[in-house]
């Protein structure tokens, strides 16, 4: 029976892979996009419910925890996707060395995360009336 001479199969422990912050932002851009898509399907389901069941009114469901969670997920995912998308677009537009380095610097990534954190707190306070 054939055996590979190397040390295979290799177990890839995902927790030990160290990615730079920009790579995490890029992965998170995709995850937030997927979250947005799922929450938009949730909104569509909600509109269908309101249109197909006259007994269900907007006022009767708007304070339900599922609807409030939907608002929270949508706006938090959307704000992250918007901010990281803006950074992607800027990086593609300003391709000369200096602005490109600034846009992709760790400081800008941290500023993006800080802004997103502040916006997320604002969204949670607004949606849940805290």
């Amino acid at each position, binding site marked *: 029976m054939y055996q590979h001479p190397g040390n295979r199969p290799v177990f890839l422990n995902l927790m030990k892979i160290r990615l730079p912050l920009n790579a995490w932002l890029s992965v998170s851009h995709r995850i937030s996009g997927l979250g947005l898509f799922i929450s*938009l399907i949730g909104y569509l389901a909600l*509109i269908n419910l309101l249109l197909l069941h006259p007994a269900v009114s*907007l006022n009767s469901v708007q304070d339900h925890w599922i609807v409030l969670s939907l608002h929270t997920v949508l*706006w938090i995912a959307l704000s992250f996707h*918007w901010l990281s*998308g803006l950074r992607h*677009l800027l990086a593609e537009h300003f391709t000369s060395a200096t602005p490109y380095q600034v846009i992709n610097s760790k400081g800008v990534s941290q500023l993006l995360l800080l802004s997103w954190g502040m916006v997320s707190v604002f969204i949670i306070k607004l949606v849940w009336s805290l």
Partner: protein
Amino acid sequence: MNLQSLSGKQAHIWQRLSALYLLIYTPYLAWISLSISPQESLPNLAALLLSPIYLLPSLVAILLIIVHSWIGLRDIIIDYTPRAHTILWLWGLRWLLIVISMNIVWVLFTLYFTH
């Protein structure tokens, strides 16, 4: 559908164009959402959202969200699903977007003609 027929360049252009529009539309949507009273009823809300100032930019946004979703989710499927199942996933995504699009058209017609 085969993987070779999925163009990278055209997809990139559409992804960027839709991203640029949605970059401007998203703050506009946030402003609309903040300005709507939480006690609004569905007929009042429908009347407000179906007025031309809201409807036209939102219709363009819905179309571009579908395009943006197709390209973004397509890339995720191509990158992360096992190659043997990729086409199946892509067909699933395509049909899901077709069903969603048809449902959006039905919702818009229902809101327009009944509220």
